């Protein structure tokens, strides 16, 4: 399976994302600069964390207009897996691929530590290797991860079963402790915690590895690749 790791000016988790899908999970990946417009050769799209365009105006607001984003939207429409982590999640929100918006953390602190993360939904292409209700240890590193959506939107998220991850304990003020959501079609996941930083026991936790393994497993089943 071949992944595109999209690199914006100011991305800083692109290397970790690349490392996770290549060294940890054993698949192929390529860095794709944000000015590229052709993503046809890729099977999955990864939007890494960082501070694209210095978070100017609002986090993710400028990156959304990068040339590559039209192709990301197209890949999403084609049903390819699209994963946005941290700033990648913020970009998915700003571009309208996922509902809601991010505010500054409730206590205004930049929160950088490993937190308990609960798997609410294990029947997605990103979480099939987890058990629903399982608690993972995954690092967060964000100043603007306070997820907001209106009550109506929250009802919709619940009804469509789009809430994938919640914080094990209140963390940043997010509505319903939401840490990650999928789109209605189930192939676009945005999450604030960093699974790509938790793929080896050496660095504290390997609970994030199964997220990437889930994506690969789903792709292999769909394309009947046995090797």
């Amino acid at each position, binding site marked *: 399976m071949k992944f595109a790791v999209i690199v914006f000016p100011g991305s800083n988790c692109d290397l970790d994302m690349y490392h996770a899908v290549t060294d940890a999970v054993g698949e192929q990946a390529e860095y794709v600069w944000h000015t590229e417009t052709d993503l046809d050769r890729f099977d999955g799209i990864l939007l890494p964390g960082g501070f694209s365009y210095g978070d100017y*105006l*609002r986090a993710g*607001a400028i990156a959304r*207009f990068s040339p590559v984003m039209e192709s990301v939207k197209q890949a999403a429409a084609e049903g390819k897996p699209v994963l946005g982590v941290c700033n990648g999640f913020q970009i998915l*929100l*700003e571009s309208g691929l996922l*509902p*809601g*918006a991010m*505010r*500054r*953390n*409730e*206590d*205004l602190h930049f929160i950088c530590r490993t937190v308990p993360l609960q798997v609410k939904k294990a029947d997605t292409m990103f979480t099939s290797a987890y058990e629903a209700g399982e608690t993972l240890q995954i690092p967060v590193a964000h100043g603007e991860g*306070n997820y*907001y*959506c*209106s009550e109506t939107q929250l009802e919709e998220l619940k009804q469509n079963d789009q809430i994938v991850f919640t914080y094990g304990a209140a963390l940043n*003020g997010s509505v319903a402790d939401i840490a990650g959501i999928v789109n209605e079609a189930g192939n676009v996941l945005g999450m604030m915690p960093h699974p790509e930083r938790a793929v080896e026991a050496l660095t504290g936790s390997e609970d994030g590895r199964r997220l990437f393994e889930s994506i690969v497993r789903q792709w292999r089943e769909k394309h009947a690749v046995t090797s």
Partner: protein
Amino acid sequence: MTYDVTVYVTWKEGVLDPQGTAVTESLHKLGYGEVESVSISRMLQLRLEAAPEEVESKVTEMCEKLLANPVIEDYRFEVEEVVST
């Protein structure tokens, strides 16, 4: 025509503004207990060339597309013609 446009981007009602809350608390600590709330907004100043009949619609478009995030923010703006001297 040349216009100076001032755009105010504010939080939608009901959206908690963590910075505003922190500043409210600081003002209380300074003894200004009369302050009920503080809301921190963004102000953007644009200078642009536009035909008189389209300046408002153009700025509205800019606000909707980029300057404000309609999920959490409201906007309003004031248009002033720049008179060349």
